């Protein structure tokens, strides 16, 4: 049975000024509800711009953007409010996004979400008392608090060490399966994309276009060190290098 897509972009183009170069050129993208899509590309290919357009933080110069409900966004920095505890940070998202929820219910819901990302014990800690990985998990709980169908993630683990990132991949995969969110995950890390996505989209640079896509069989739990992930990474990296070489000529 065909269902309405969570995100549908058609012919989306972006240039920042009339005379400036084209950043995004005719992007067509459909994401099904509950799908996990990784958007992969070299720095400066416009993948963050595209994410910003889907998040309504930016507008497209041409084309149409349809998003089911509005999207929640997670950034590379956790961007927590430093004067609020982890719980109050999550509560703020509940207060701003769902005004109908009374205060005790907000508190309970915030604790529930922090427990989902395995931070129930750190609820009363302030951001500066948490490690980078814990801060990103609070940011994930905050994004989930908005209760939106679509979750956009802009290189959320890029600033973390490899061990933490590896655990957060598992964490994110688990949260995705439990909550059934639609996730668009932007990254410049090929292995990360091959590890996480059900579908990996490769973007070229200048102008930004989607040049290839891979579907990943999602039958068994993957690991960053799985042979399946390695094989796909090799394949994607080869094409990524060809795209970069085009720019050298």
């Amino acid at each position, binding site marked *: 049975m065909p269902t309405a897509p969570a995100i549908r972009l058609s012919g989306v183009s972006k240039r920042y000024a009339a005379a400036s170069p084209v950043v995004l050129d005719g992007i067509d993208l459909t994401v099904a509800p509950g799908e996990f899509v990784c958007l992969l590309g070299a720095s400066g290919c416009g993948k963050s711009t595209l994410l910003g357009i889907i998040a309504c933080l930016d507008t497209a110069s041409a084309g149409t953007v349809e998003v089911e409900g509005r999207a929640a966004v997670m950034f590379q920095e956790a961007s927590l409010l*430093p*004067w609020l505890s982890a719980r109050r940070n999550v509560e703020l998202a509940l207060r701003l996004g769902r005004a109908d929820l009374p205060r005790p219910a907000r508190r309970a819901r915030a604790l529930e979400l922090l427990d989902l990302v*395995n*931070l129930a*014990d750190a609820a009363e800690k302030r951001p*500066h008392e948490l490690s*980078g990985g814990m801060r990103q998990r609070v940011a994930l709980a905050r994004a989930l608090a908005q209760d939106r169908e679509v979750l956009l993630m802009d290189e959320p683990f890029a600033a973390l060490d490899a061990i*933490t990132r590896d*655990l957060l991949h598992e964490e994110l995969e688990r949260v995705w399966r439990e909550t059934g969110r639609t996730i668009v995950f932007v990254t410049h890390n090929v292995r990360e994309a091959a590890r996480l996505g059900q579908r990996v989209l490769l973007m070229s640079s200048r102008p930004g276009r989607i040049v290839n896509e891979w579907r990943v069989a999602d039958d068994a739990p993957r690991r960053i060190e799985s042979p399946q992930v390695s094989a796909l990474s090799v394949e994607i990296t080869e094409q990524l290098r060809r795209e970069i070489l085009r720019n050298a000529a």
Partner: protein
Amino acid sequence: MPPETLVAASAAAADTHADDLRTLEAGLDRLQTDVERPLPWWRRAIDGVLPPVLLVIVLLAAWQAYTVIAQPRPDLAPGPLDVAAALGEAWNDGRLQLAVATSLERGILGFLIAVAVGTPLGLLLAEWAPLRRALGPLISGLQVLPSVAWVPAAILWFGLSDATVYFVVLMGAIPSIVNGLVAGVAQVPPQLRRVGRVLGASRLELATSVVLPAALPGYLAGLKQGWAFSWRSLMAAEIIAFGGSIGFGLGSLLQQGRDLADLAGVLGTILVILALGIVIELLVFAPVERGLLRRRGLTGGTP
């Protein structure tokens, strides 16, 4: 194996996997965060209070030793005991208490009025760029202009009355408070505003829930400077504007000491003014600032 058992087994495996992840994550969290163990309050009090108190005792002892050994003219270089005697005399005839009460009352009242005027003005400037561009340089200029410069004009406008004193205090304090608030808002990381918008905050919610709390440290710095400028301006105004219906403040006490060539009294008054400034800083601003910075993980220059 019947299929049900297989399903149950794989579900159990998934459960243990989730539990493993939890434990693993908890271990990593513990490795990556260190527990702060705060010093007991008496230790912090000793660490903070002892060094300055010792310094004061050493300075007083050196001063007294100089007067005993070098025997300077007491009217040009009075010793600490002479100064204490002069203060005691002023206390006995009630001038000291009157002066401290008058000055503190004016300083605090003037500062509060400056806060009440400066805060909305600062918010308006911070959130409305055209006004900031127009008025910003003027406010910065006023901050540089010594507010004593207003005393002659204020005397001509308001005569020798309390209004003169308050006018000078406000001209000293308001620009600092406005500038502090504007700087505090300007230093709010743009990313926090972006997050606020992503979370669905309206303009008002963004201001009250994100921008204002984020600007608090800058605002507090402005308030501190505003208080310092109020206190200085007040002393200057009290020294220059003497008599009329103006009450008797610490500046007046200084001026009276000069007229009587009473150097011990003048030095004593200076010490009282200094001590009051320190007490207000230690009792009011320092605890607020320390709490504010500690909550945000910004431990300032002082431990």
